[in-house]
């Protein structure tokens, strides 16, 4: 004897597939939705469909965009010789917020992680290699996470992308701004030392 009507169970199952939503939250949202005013639910459904229909990946860099090529790729004021390599489209937003990067981007779509079955060929590396041939790119800045997969992927890319006239750099990582050395672990400290820079006198 089911206490909860079947459509609700189906809705809970569908919601629970969303990232960051566990079974409890899925249940709460589903129960809210089936009791909410029907117009507002329809509006939510339309908004979801509309967003999905209008947002796509930029054919050049892989960023989320309404129009392809995206605003950054088609912006002539951006430095076309500089490309920043990121893992996910959302990483572009983080870097843009800092307001210090004026080049273009390339979204890899993941990182090499053998445990999840992600191999180099599953990443958008071929697209970047095409861009290296077609665009006047002089420097690729690798801006991946500093976990094991991020670092291993960075190393892989540095080797694979290496070619004459192209500089490959990696964003610095080390001691967070505003914190003391005593809180840094060995790996972080050894990275920070490796990436040390000469100070202007």
């Amino acid at each position, binding site marked *: 004897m089911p206490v909860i009507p079947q459509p609700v169970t189906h809705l809970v199952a569908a919601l629970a597939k969303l990232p960051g939503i566990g079974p409890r939250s899925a249940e709460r949202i589903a129960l809210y939705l089936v009791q909410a005013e029907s117009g507002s639910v329809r509006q939510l459904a339309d908004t979801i469909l509309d967003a999905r229909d209008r947002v796509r990946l930029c054919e050049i860099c892989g960023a989320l965009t309404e129009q392809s090529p995206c605003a950054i790729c088609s912006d002539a004021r951006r430095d076309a010789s500089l490309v920043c390599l990121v893992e996910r489209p959302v990483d572009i937003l983080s870097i843009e917020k800092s307001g210090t990067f004026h080049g273009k981007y390339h979204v890899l779509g993941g990182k090499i992680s053998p445990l999840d079955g992600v191999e180099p060929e599953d990443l958008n590396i071929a697209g970047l290699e095409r861009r290296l041939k077609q665009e006047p790119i002089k420097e690729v800045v690798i801006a991946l996470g500093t976990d094991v997969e991020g670092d*291993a992927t960075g190393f892989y890319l540095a080797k694979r992308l290496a070619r004459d006239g192209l500089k490959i750099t990696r964003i610095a990582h080390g001691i967070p701004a505003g914190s003391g050395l005593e809180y840094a672990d060995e790996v972080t400290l050894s990275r920070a030392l490796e990436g040390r820079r000469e100070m202007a006198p």
Partner: protein
Amino acid sequence: MAAESTQRLRRTMHLAYLRLRDFRNYGRLDADFEPGFHLLLGDNAQGKTNILEAIYLIATLRSFRGVGGAPMIRHGQKGYFVGAKIVSQGEHEVKMYWSAQERSLSLDGRPVQKLTDYLGVLRTVVFCTEDLQLVKGPARARRRFMDLLLSQTHSTYLPLLQRYTQALRARNALLRQPIVDPVALEGFSRELVRAGDEIIRLRRELVPRFSPLAQEAHHRISAGAEALRLEYQPSVKSDFTTELAQSAARERSYRSTVIGPHRDDLQLLLADRAAAQFGSEGQKRTLAIALKMAQADYVTGIHSAPPVLLIDDIMGELDAKRRAGFLPLLERAHQARGQVFMTATEANWPEDLAQESLGWRVERGTLVKQAGSSG
């Protein structure tokens, strides 16, 4: 002035209360504990060890019985809850809930985001029959012991170990693929070596610091019968990168990483012979307890505060002479105003300790303070 500085350095740590809901055979337990020596008395299978298990769980988020969460849930219930207050420099409140669907851990009312922020709130050293594995068991048991010592005394060791393990697992997954991409493999090798070198360095530094304590404890408890020597045996002999490259052929046939800190051992030698092979049962047992006593001393030395000692029914395993060697540890814990929880059955409870202890009776999942025990 000397007295004043000792005074300031003397720190303590104790479990002030424990709450259990549907944990093992406890439907509901609320108990307040003072610093000092707590003797949990009761017949077998009444739930004495379960209390030690819960305290150890708060400290390490693991069971010392080596089981996952499910067996700790009370029969027929959905999940267990363990709550505690720990008093050291400050006061900390811990709440954890575990069920098959849901688990949560909070410290002082806030969810714990990073394990490293949490571990160290409560430090414990457990003495139990499983300790014998330290001597008799595979190298894994001794690696875990070194890891435990280092993570209890070195705040950055755990993330380092996690990073190494991540690199190792990724690398092994690559080696299992039909065609191994050499550049991708090299990327993970670098990560493996980077974290691995640090682990080797820290383990290498640990052993000479820990050895004298183990020797002293062993001397005390075995009345100086045989000389104990601890020897770190790293899998990497001199250069990790070179040796990893040299092992390539073996890696391909085993389809996994065959050298590195995950293959280290800690050799235990009694009179220069491997204890696991040549020691008697009694010698092995004595050695295991000595290692744990040394762990307690080591952790005390680093933090200037004794860890909470959890002693599960081991007095029965010791003869009168060895028991006498064990008592100074409890004595010292007592003097430092530390806290000790010790289980015993009526038949083997240590009467020599009775006067100083706070007695509890454990019966079918209840814990009752015994009348007449001093507080």
